[in-house]
Structure formats: structure tokens, C-alpha cells
């Protein structure tokens, strides 16, 4: 029922989204922790920068990525000279676009869960002999798990749906950057490809729905026995 081309599109979308989320998870948690716990100069600016992709048109985000990662852009030139690599018109570029667009959602979910951790429990752990790092590892991090899971799944769903920044940044190249939404858009331009549009759209809905259900199940398991509700 699915053509080899369609299976390839789905696998590419999954690869791009999984790599994007895996790459931003530690970064998101670090930023979320800083925003939730630390007062430092530039905190408001960091908060605004992280949220920027949520509010500017995705085509602008894509264009900014193009400027940064292009051959003459600051990041692009650096990648080229050090690794001889480029992300232009590659699936890695699509993953970068997905990651940037997902970042506000992952940071937000994680920040809320870190803020919800009762700091009095952390004080109690200190009096029991735990160093601040041990407290982080054994109290703060485990109690924030539901938010980390929620953030990862939201980020994944956002990545699967990413369109505007991707097509602007790395174009719509079959096998490299033509993810599900780009393929659906492409098929819509072709007369008689309605069946493909329908099939790919159904797959999109199933992936997003599946992600949400998995997140709910994981969050429930993480919350088992604790009383406190999650998500």
C-alpha cells in the first residue's frame, strides 16, 4: 500500500526528528535548568532567544539558518574549514532546522518540571550528606523526568511537522531533505497525486498521535507511586 518512495520519506522524517530531538535534549535541559534556577545577566535575553523560533515566521528562521550555515556564514565556514562538511541541502541541515524549531517546546516543558521540583526536598538531601551534584542526580533529575519526557515528545512531534524553516534552509530534495510535510506539499503541486497526499497525511497524523500517547504512558509510568500528577 505504501510505495518504496513513501517508505523512504517516512524513514527520513523519523531519522531527522530523532536526531534533532536527541541533539537538543541535553542542551534543552541545560537551558531549562539555567532559566529555572539561576539569576544571571542576560537571562531575559536567553529566554527570548530560545523562544524566538516560536514567534517569528518559520521562513525567517530558515533564512537566518541559511545565513549562519551557508558557505560564507560564520558556522558554515567553520564547519567547512574544520570538518570539510556542509549541512546545506543535506538531511543534517533538515535536522538542524527541526531542532531549532523544537527547542522552545522542549525547553519550556523541562523548565516547568524543574520549577515544580520541591526545593525543600533538595535541602533535606543536603542535610543527609549529599553534595549539590549528588542532589541533582538523585533528586532533581529523577523528579523532572516527566517533564523531560514530555519535552522530548513535544519536540519530536514538532520536528515531524516542521516545514517552513526546513524548505527555506535546505530546500526540498528527494532522499535528503524531503520530509513528510515537504513531500505532501510537493505532491499537492502535482495533478493526480491526491492518493499520495492522503496516505502521507494519514501517516503524519498517526505519528503525531502515537508520540502523544507514548508520552502520556511514559509519564504515567514515571509518576507511578508518587502521587503528584504529571504533564
Amino acid at each position, binding site marked *: 500500500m505504501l510505495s518504496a518512495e513513501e517508505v523512504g520519506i517516512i524513514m527520513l522524517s523519523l531519522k531527522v526528528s530523532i536526531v534533532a530531538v536527541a541533539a537538543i535534549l541535553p542542551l534543552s535541559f541545560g537551558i531549562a535548568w539555567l532559566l529555572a534556577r539561576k539569576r544571571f545577566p542576560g537571562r531575559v535575553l536567553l529566554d527570548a532567544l530560545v523562544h524566538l523560533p516560536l514567534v517569528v515566521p518559520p521562513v525567517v528562521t530558515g533564512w537566518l539558518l541559511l545565513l549562519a550555515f551557508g558557505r560564507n556564514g560564520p558556522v558554515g565556514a567553520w564547519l567547512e574549514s574544520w570538518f570539510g562538511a556542509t549541512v546545506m541541502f543535506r538531511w543534517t541541515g533538515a535536522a538542524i532546522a527541526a531542532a531549532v524549531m523544537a527547542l522552545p517546546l522542549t525547553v519550556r516543558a523541562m523548565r516547568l518540571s524543574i520549577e515544580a521540583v520541591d526545593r525543600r526536598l533538595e535541602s533535606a538531601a543536603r*542535610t*543527609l550528606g549529599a553534595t549539590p551534584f549528588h542532589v541533582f542526580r*538523585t533528586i532533581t533529575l529523577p523528579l523532572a523526568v516527566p517533564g523531560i519526557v514530555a519535552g522530548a515528545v513535544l519536540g519530536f512531534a514538532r520536528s515531524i511537522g516542521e516545514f517552513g524553516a526546513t524548505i527555506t534552509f535546505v530546500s526540498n530534495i528527494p532522499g535528503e531533505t524531503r520530509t513528510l510535510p515537504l513531500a505532501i506539499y510537493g505532491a499537492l503541486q502535482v495533478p493526480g497525486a491526491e492518493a499520495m497526499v492522503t496516505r502521507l497525511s494519514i501517516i503524519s497524523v498517526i505519528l503525531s498521535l502515537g508520540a502523544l500517547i507514548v508520552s502520556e504512558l511514559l509519564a504515567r509510568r514515571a509518576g507511578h*507511586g508518587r502521587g*503528584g500528577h504529571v504533564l
Partner: protein
Amino acid sequence: MGGAAMSFDLDISVALGGTRIATTFSAGPGLTALFGPSGAGKTTILNMAAGLVRPDSGRIAIAGETLFDTAADIDRPPEARRAGYVFQDGRLFPHRRVRANLLYGEALADPAQRWITLDEVTDFLGIAHLLDRWPRTLSGGEAQRVAIGRALLSAPRFLLMDEPLSSLDAARREEIMLVIERVRDTLGLPILYVSHDRAEVERLATTIIAIG
């Protein structure tokens, strides 16, 4: 200032949110009760003894060890003070079963400094049957006994108790009071105890310090 034999020797002051909390007292062995109205800063004094709040100036020596001294530039972090802190609200870790809560501080203590085992603690406090339970399934009295056990297992040199009875009904209060009397009389640990209940303090305290 008290002599070297004092269990508690505090001379501290701190300004928090516009109010100044200052106290100077020395007390011998047994249970020393800080007694006074709510909002007088009793809990803040416990937090300073535990290292959770830093005094602006002064000195804290407990059971013969200086934990804080602005003049000598000493300020031991909470994890190095070996305080067994029993909080008003229990503060059991919700993601760990009772057994893992009890062993949290035990695992971090220097084995040579441990002076009580898990079996002894569960016998002493009557909580052996609770070991596999989650904290949220415990009654107030059970949770407070687990909290006391967790503090004892962390190999403390002294105990800090912040109104450990206040969230309990009358029957449970009696039960925990008996536990505290046993801790005071059989374990020989100096205890700094905060309360605003006169009857409770008169029954439990070896020394009473009025605060506020």
C-alpha cells in the same frame, strides 16, 4: 558563651526579609527546646545550625565541633555537618520507596561513622512493615517515623527537629512523642527541638530556650 562540654553553643544573627533574628545560648546534653511564638525565627535557627541558611555573623558549635564561625572563616556545607534534620513536613523523597528513603543518607555516610543499622532503626521505630511502601501511601505518623529513621541512619552527631508533631492528630502525637523520648534517653544524641506548644516542650525538654 558556654564551655567545651556544651552540646549546643550558638551565637548568631541574620537579617532575613527586613527582620533580624539573633540568638545566643548554650545548652548541655539532652533535648534543648527552642520555644516561642510562630514567626519568631525558630526554624531559621535550625536552618542555620544545619547550614541551610548562612548567618550574617557569629559562631555555631555543636557537640564539640565548630560548624560556623565568621571570625575564623569556618562555614561547613550542610552535607559535612552530620545533622539529622527532621522537618515539620517530613520531606520524604516521593520517587523512592520507604527503604530507599531510609538508606539515602546511610549510603552517603562514612561507614566508620555509622552507629545504627537499618534493622535497628526499623525495630526501634516500628516501621519494618512499611519498607516497600511509597511515601504518599503513609499516614502522617508513619511518614514522620520514617523521616526520623532516615535522619538517624545518616550517622548524625546531633538531631534538629522542627515541630515534628504539628501535622499529627492527638493519637499520633503521643506515638511520636514516645519515639522522641526514646531517642533522647537511649541514643544520647543532642537534640535541638523547635516548638510553640508549651505542654510538649515541658514534657520533652531538658533545657528550654525562649525565642522571640
